[in-house]
């Protein structure tokens, strides 16, 4: 059967359609609650995906994450508290609209351009992934090693923190991945005689711990955000077409940047939004208007973060290397459902891949009506007391992690990772870098050790093949970039007086 028709048939199944609708509502609600990120929404969904068909499982992840990234804009615009980190870049701008009495314009722009970004990102996924699959078929372990390492380095570069702390976090993640006997030699490592550790640390309890439990812990230590006054909104989509025509060029630039950042392994929606907002301001004809309720930055960054979401699936589907923390979860689900990432996915399971594209497009289309409803009821949802939401999240963390292996040890792990995530976050160690280390540890080690065995302990073959040499150059560039930036900063003030003198 034609893969496109097969994809349509897979998506049209009632369980898939129900999964899309239910996860859309879930994503919108969770994303809009301050402190509950899109990653956390996705991580808490994983236990549910166990009982779904493969396509329905993927559909819940895709839909919930896309909705949550958009809906993070809602509390950002109304309360100046970003619902998800991906909205943080333009929260002040969106809030300036609310102060001017035009919240519907900022929210509408968030919705409209998120949907456009999501659809353009999906088109890029459809074009890029199969084309790159051809190239990826010729990759050997050397290329896989550099690619995985490049993904990890990107994750450390994009963290808005000290690069050394980011690299340390990543190494910590890799060390955690060493636990257990899933290594090329099958030797139990760092298990301390605990049988539960023999199988290694599962990514899901770790993710739920660092993203959800640590958030509940933070809520314990901080004051409750202000309650939102009840307000009525005017027409939400009224001026969006005008904005689309007016800021067409920034919109396309935002889409493009989002796609590029999404494709980079390790860099995700948060980074896309920050880069695009900064870029929009730099290239704008009226940069002085930024921060005062000017739509240009919103258009560009709003499109960018949703575009990156879809293109982030490119490295995940092709190489099993997560584009961001959300796809790190998605990869686990793909393996669980027998859709093992790899270039052959596009030839052997073409129907499923088409189904995935269709789900992306469908999710971004239904985002518009559901998003409008969400904006209208946001005042009510945002009034839910935090003291009621957070304990239930904690309970879901416990039950969800138990469900991943019917094992109470996972519940303890979730608590431990919650503490670790909390301490790391407070001290400027980026959590995402550690998570990617945990998810990719086995792959990095496997490709590293196999390559070393192939080359008889020689390092040169790591650089001999053209693609691997190129990837190695990129990786080493990413590694030494902080050193160069630091040196530049040190030298710049010395040069400035010299130039004046």
């Amino acid at each position, binding site marked *: 059967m034609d893969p496109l028709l097969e994809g349509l048939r897979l998506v049209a199944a009632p369980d898939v359609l129900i999964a899309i609708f239910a996860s859309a509502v879930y994503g919108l609600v969770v994303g809009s609650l301050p402190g509950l990120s899109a990653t956390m929404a996705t991580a808490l969904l994983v236990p549910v995906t166990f009982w779904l068909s493969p396509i329905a499982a993927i559909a819940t992840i895709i839909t919930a994450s896309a909705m949550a990234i958009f809906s993070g804009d809602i509390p950002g615009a109304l309360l100046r508290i970003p619902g998800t980190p991906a909205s943080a870049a333009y929260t002040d701008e969106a809030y300036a609209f609310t102060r001017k009495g035009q919240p519907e314009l900022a929210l509408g722009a968030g919705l409209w351009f998120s949907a456009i970004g999501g659809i353009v990102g999906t088109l890029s996924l459809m074009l890029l992934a199969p084309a790159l699959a051809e190239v990826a078929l010729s990759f050997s372990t050397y290329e896989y090693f550099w690619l995985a390492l490049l993904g990890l380095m990107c994750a450390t570069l994009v963290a808005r923190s000290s*690069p050394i702390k980011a690299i*340390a976090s990543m190494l910590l993640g890799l060390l955690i991945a060493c636990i257990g006997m899933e290594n090329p030699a099958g*030797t139990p*490592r*760092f298990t301390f005689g605990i049988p539960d550790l023999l199988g290694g640390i599962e990514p899901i309890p770790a993710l739920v711990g660092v993203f959800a439990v640590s958030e509940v812990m933070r809520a314990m*230590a901080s004051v409750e955000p202000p309650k939102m006054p009840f307000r009525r909104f005017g027409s939400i989509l009224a001026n969006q077409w005008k904005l689309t025509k007016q800021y067409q060029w920034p919109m396309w630039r935002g889409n493009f940047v989002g796609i590029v950042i999404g494709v980079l392994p390790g860099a995700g929606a948060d980074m896309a939004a920050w880069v695009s907002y900064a870029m929009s301001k730099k290239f704008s004809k009226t940069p002085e208007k930024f921060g005062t309720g000017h739509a240009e930055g919103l258009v560009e960054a709003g499109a960018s973060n949703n575009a990156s979401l879809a293109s982030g699936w490119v490295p995940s589907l092709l190489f099993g290397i997560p584009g961001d923390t959300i796809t790190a979860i998605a990869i686990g689900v793909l393996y669980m459902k027998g859709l093992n990432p790899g270039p052959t996915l596009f030839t052997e399971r073409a129907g499923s891949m088409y189904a995935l594209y269709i789900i992306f497009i469908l999710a971004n289309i239904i985002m518009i009506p559901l998003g409008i409803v969400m904006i209208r009821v946001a005042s009510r949802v945002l009034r839910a007391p935090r003291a*009621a939401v957070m304990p239930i999240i904690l309970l879901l963390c416990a*039950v969800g992690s138990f469900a991943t292996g019917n094992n109470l040890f996972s519940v303890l792990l979730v608590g431990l990772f919650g503490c670790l995530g909390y*301490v790391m976050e407070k001290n400027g160690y980026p959590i995402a870098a550690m998570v990617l280390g945990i998810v990719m540890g086995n792959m990095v080690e496997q490709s590293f050790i196999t390559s070393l065995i192939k080359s008889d302990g020689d390092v040169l073959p790591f650089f001999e093949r053209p693609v691997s040499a190129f990837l190695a150059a990129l990786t080493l560039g990413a590694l030494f970039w902080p050193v160069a930036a630091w040196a530049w900063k040190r030298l710049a003030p010395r040069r400035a007086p010299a130039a004046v003198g």
Partner: protein
Amino acid sequence: MQLSDRITGGALVLLGAAAAWGGSKLPAVPGQDVGPAAFPMLIGFGLIFCGSLIAFGVGRSFEVEEEPQENSGSLMARLGLRVLVPPALLLFYALAVDHLGFLLTAGVMVFLGALALRASVKLALPLAIIAPFFVHLAFYRLLRVPLPEGLLGAPW
């Protein structure tokens, strides 16, 4: 839990040293140069290097300063012990659920969690009674997760 870079960096150095030492003790694979020890040792040395850089304050200029949050109110809040409530509740869940059963354990967990977040008893009590039933319904009935029954079984 804001610690100085000296402490976190020092902890990473110690962890790295432990990883490298533990890694070096792993048995080699006969007939092969690289075995299970290589990767942990590499990471261990990396952690020692990064940890010492952090302890000496290299790379601080890249960090975004976090706004200090004021801790007011009771002694518990001032000491920051409240943040330990969620992991403590998870520990309680893991230890108690097989004996007390899901509904009771979850009820206690939600009730104490809500109180720790300064909810009134009027909110915490109904929440602790209702929420576990819905979670049980979703996970036990729909997703078929074997949640223990313990002292109090669900009506389904």
